[in-house]
């Protein structure tokens, strides 16, 4: 009888909190969006599933050994943990607070105490440590993305890099919005938080996760969910802005066919970009370095088996762990927060401003050059969201002029946006990291 009681008192249904119920519902909603609405399923299926697992009561899959020890709150364990953290209070919340703010050696000491008491890290916490806290998973994804990226359209028309630059305005405007909300007392974001939130506007999943893991790991769940959801929503977010900012005649502008780009140019480009990064912004070196490495493997033509693996087996394996790890940040205590709402709101603003900035930049370039070389619809592709944003440019262009295929032209700013937001990420890590 006692055993039945024990099973019952350890069951999820006995222990579940309202927050966990809510977050399981959020996880199911993400799965629905991914599976039925096709919202970036490669990421949102693992994130959603990981989010559900992270909220299984008593399993502690998303928690560290110390967090699990605090959860079960045996007095002697709390005592020992408090001692290892150099605090006198044995209040669980104060212990957790001290633990999360501790430096690495104290953190290690507390972990040892928890391990000695028989607690261990949850599975998803381990995945997060290995894949994201170490920084490796976003970098490997970026390498794979590099190996999938064709810089041909960009090389044929390098000026489209300006569109990729302009669209990053969404990032920095959002940073300003986030600190503004905090200054007004509505939200409570540090400048690091603001920078991490802003990067949602870069419309690049791995960049957003990399920056968030360095500047604001506690917001990573919300930031990643916002980044991938809004990328999936690009076909809904961008068109009204693009139509509002362009005239019918501008949308009809036909662009010159792109020149042929030689193999050698494609090989030289990632090397040139890497050296520019090395000379100007070392803080962007890991992100852009791995991106360029992937692209060089693709273009050099002599390591096709490595390039294939980077684009397939390796990126798939990393995506599974990255998604589950992000899901671990959807535990109720971390996600259900007014800040999450703020992040979701600011994220969509970032996408909108980035889109507008790209379109307006294209119009400005036409004006400065006194011609009609650029259809402003390709400016919106500068936010990245590869290749969705380029497809949106193409679609709106075809609506205005059924003979005008903008897809290849939009791929230039599209990949430029990837570089642009990685540069922006480097600047943020430099200034507030």
């Amino acid at each position: 009888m006692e055993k039945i009681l024990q099973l019952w008192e350890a069951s999820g249904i006995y222990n579940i909190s309202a927050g966990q119920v809510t977050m399981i519902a959020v996880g199911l909603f993400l799965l629905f969006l991914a599976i039925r609405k096709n919202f970036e399923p490669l990421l949102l299926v693992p994130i959603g599933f990981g989010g559900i697992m992270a909220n299984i009561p008593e399993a502690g899959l998303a928690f560290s050994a110390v967090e699990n020890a605090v959860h079960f709150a045996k007095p002697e364990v709390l005592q020992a943990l408090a001692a290892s953290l150099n605090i006198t209070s044995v209040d669980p919340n104060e212990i957790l607070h001290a633990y999360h703010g501790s430096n690495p050696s104290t953190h290690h000491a507390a972990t040892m105490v928890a391990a000695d008491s028989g607690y261990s890290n949850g599975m998803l916490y381990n995945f997060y440590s290995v894949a994201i806290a170490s920084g490796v998973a976003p970098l490997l994804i970026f390498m794979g993305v590099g190996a999938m990226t064709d810089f041909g359209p960009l090389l044929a028309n390098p000026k489209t890099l300006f569109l990729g630059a302009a669209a990053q305005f969404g990032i920095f405007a959002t940073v300003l919005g986030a600190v503004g909300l905090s200054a007004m007392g509505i939200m409570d974001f540090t400048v690091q938080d603001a920078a991490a939130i802003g990067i949602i506007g870069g419309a690049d999943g791995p960049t957003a996760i990399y920056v968030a893991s360095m500047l604001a790991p506690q917001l990573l769940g919300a930031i990643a969910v916002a980044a991938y959801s809004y990328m999936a929503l690009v076909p809904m977010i961008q068109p009204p802005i693009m139509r509002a900012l362009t005239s019918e005649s501008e949308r009809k502008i036909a662009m010159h066919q792109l020149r042929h780009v030689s193999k050698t140019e494609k090989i030289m480009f990632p090397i040139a970009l890497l050296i520019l990064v090395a000379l100007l912004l070392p803080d962007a070196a890991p992100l852009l370095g791995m991106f360029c490495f992937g692209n060089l493997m693709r273009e050099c033509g002599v390591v096709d088996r490595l390039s294939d693996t980077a684009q397939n087996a390796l990126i798939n394996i990393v995506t599974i762990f990255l998604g589950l790890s992000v899901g671990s940040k959807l535990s109720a205590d971390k996600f259900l927060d007014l800040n999450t709402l703020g992040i979701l709101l600011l994220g969509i603003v970032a996408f909108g401003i980035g889109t507008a900035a790209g379109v307006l930049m294209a119009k400005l370039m036409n004006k400065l050059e006194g011609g009609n070389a650029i259809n402003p619809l390709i400016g919106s592709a500068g936010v990245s969201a590869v290749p969705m944003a380029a497809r949106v440019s193409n679609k709106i262009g075809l609506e205005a002029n059924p003979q005008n295929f903008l897809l290849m032209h939009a791929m230039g700013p599209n990949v430029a946006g990837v570089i642009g937001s990685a540069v922006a990420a480097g600047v943020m890590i430099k200034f507030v990291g």
Partner: protein
Amino acid sequence: MDSLVSEGLNLMVYGMGFVFVFLTLLVFVTTMMSKLVNKFFPEPIVEQKAKASAPQAAANNDELLAVMTAAVHKYRK
């Protein structure tokens, strides 16, 4: 409070500035690189590749043809 907003403003001004400086330089570097490449190395690799892959494709075709010929023969009997 003020310092937070000014930090944000700073980040925006210098951040956007740096992004533009960087990508402008990249436009410049890329354009120069393309010009140099097209002047000094006009498409040697691509031609090599075409040459290299041609025999292989031919081989594949031969193989295909052999298989098909056999099959068609069988069918006609």
